[in-house]
């Protein structure tokens, strides 16, 4: 059996009266590509935040490659080799595309290596012409691409992507899909998406969240045709 890179046991996050994550047991194998779906407010982003240390869970445990990381600070989790693209853009707006990616690379590589990897990533993302542009001036899709780039350049073994396709053009999505497939050569990737087209094109196993809890976890085809899932989620969208 392949190694489990991420595991949560009874993960629960309460905000006052709201239980945003409810007793989530989740397992991810090495180099697996997993999609998370669920209606708005289902607790997908909260789950990501608990895993990366942006939130400290009210209850339950998070393990990474067998090591308990519950309650760790975000930088400690990230230092293990975990990258996340948050739902709202989380980039350095006043700095250049190059600087954004370089800073991510520099954390794990010496300056020369970081420079080389940054240039390589900029090429791969076709960001060359705007490499020196200030990020805040760029279009939404370009900024998403940069955020993906700064996650990928650090060579993580676990990648969490919260709605990476949101607001992207078809061409952007295609490029991103290629990069995600690239990443799965070294990393397990979890993607939160609402775009069913995209999910169908990329996913094998899909986990469905509903009201903070895992409703179902199965192959994408079975999930898409499941009655309950259609009712809580797809029915609303279609």
């Amino acid at each position: 059996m392949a190694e489990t890179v991420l595991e949560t046991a009874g993960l629960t996050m309460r905000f006052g009266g709201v239980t945003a994550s409810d007793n989530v047991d989740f397992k991810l194998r090495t180099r697996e590509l997993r999609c998370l779906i669920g209606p708005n407010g289902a607790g997908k982003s909260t789950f990501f935040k608990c895993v990366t240390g942006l939130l400290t869970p009210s209850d339950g445990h998070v393990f990474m490659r067998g090591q308990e990381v519950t309650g760790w600070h975000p930088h400690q989790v990230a230092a293990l080799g975990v990258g996340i693209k948050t739902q709202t853009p989380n980039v350095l707006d006043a700095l250049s595309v190059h600087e954004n990616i370089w800073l991510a690379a520099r954390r794990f590589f010496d300056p020369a290596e970081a420079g080389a990897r940054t240039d390589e990533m900029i090429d791969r993302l076709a960001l060359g012409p705007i490499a020196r542009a200030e990020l805040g001036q760029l279009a939404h899709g370009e900024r998403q691409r940069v955020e993906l780039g700064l996650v990928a350049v650090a060579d993580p073994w676990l990648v969490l992507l919260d709605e990476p396709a949101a607001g992207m053009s078809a061409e952007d999505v295609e490029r991103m899909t290629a990069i995600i497939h690239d990443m799965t050569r070294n990393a397990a990737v979890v993607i939160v998406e609402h775009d069913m087209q995209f999910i169908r094109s990329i996913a094998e196993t899909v986990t469905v969240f509903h009201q903070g809890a895992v409703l179902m976890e199965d192959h994408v085809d079975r999930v898409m045709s499941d009655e309950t899932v259609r009712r809580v989620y797809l029915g609303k969208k279609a």
Partner: protein
Amino acid sequence: MRRPAARDVAGILVASALLIAVMPMLIGTYTLTVLVIYGMLGLSLGLIWGFGGILCFGQAAFFGLGAYVYAISAVNIGESTLPMILAVLVTAGFAALLGAMMFYGRLGDVYLGVITLVVTLILFKFINTTAGPQYVIGKARLGGFNGIPGFQTLNVPGDPEAYIWGDQLFYVCAVALVIVVLLVTWLLRSSFGRIAVGIRENETRMALMGYDVAARKTVLFAVGAAIAGLAGALFANWAEIVTPNLFSLGQSAEIIIWCIVGGLGTRLGPIVGAAGLAYLKFMLGQQSMIDNTLIMGLVLVLFVLFLPRGLVPAVASLWRASVGRGTRRRPSRHRRLRHG
């Protein structure tokens, strides 16, 4: 910061050499010395605020601490070299402790401002109460509101009789400032500096990249304090007395105003702001028609309204536009008060 390092350094050296040669012909060296010292003090806050996003309301505390550590150890040691070093190290150490408490405590920007302000106030109040003869450190009486006079001032290292004062003190201070500017330049070009700027822009993202934000802010805070401490020690040598007023909130507020007027996010801005406003204050002090705090307030308001990015960035963009490189994007957008 995309200019080649060699050009940057050459520019700094040429400009400083010119200024050091020319300025004494225009303004007396006694006044110039204190302008240079204030320039260094301005730079100390400009570094941590403009490049690290740490708005410290108590930079005067480090300035005063440097001055007092110098004075107290100079009285005890009778030679200036070690006291100068101690002034820098003790101040940096104090700031590292204070910074670690604030940054590891993950205090918000507002609390950071409040705490640095309160620390300044406490030091001010405490030193003021030390008038009695029981307040001594070694041979040095703290002297309360009277301060500490009559300590050994700057001398050629190893020779306590060879005092450095007057014109010579000016040259020492000016060269010290140039060295500090070069060190700051080097720091900002290093990975550490670039990461600090990243933290200024978005702490969460930097943490998610794996950077220990608290540790890095603590170090930067201590570096800023070390520079302020050095400025304080030089000030003690210039004034030949240290008093609790060095710790005053008014002084802290002035440093912040220097940075805003001169321009945050530049190395030159806070220096120019400090020297310029200090000189203005000095000129205003020679007349009694208008209250000079009123003028200072007016200057600040005018700048905030009409040149919100400060003098140096404004002049720099004018310059770039006039030499036809106006199409280049601004190096950064400074969101002054958002980041603490």
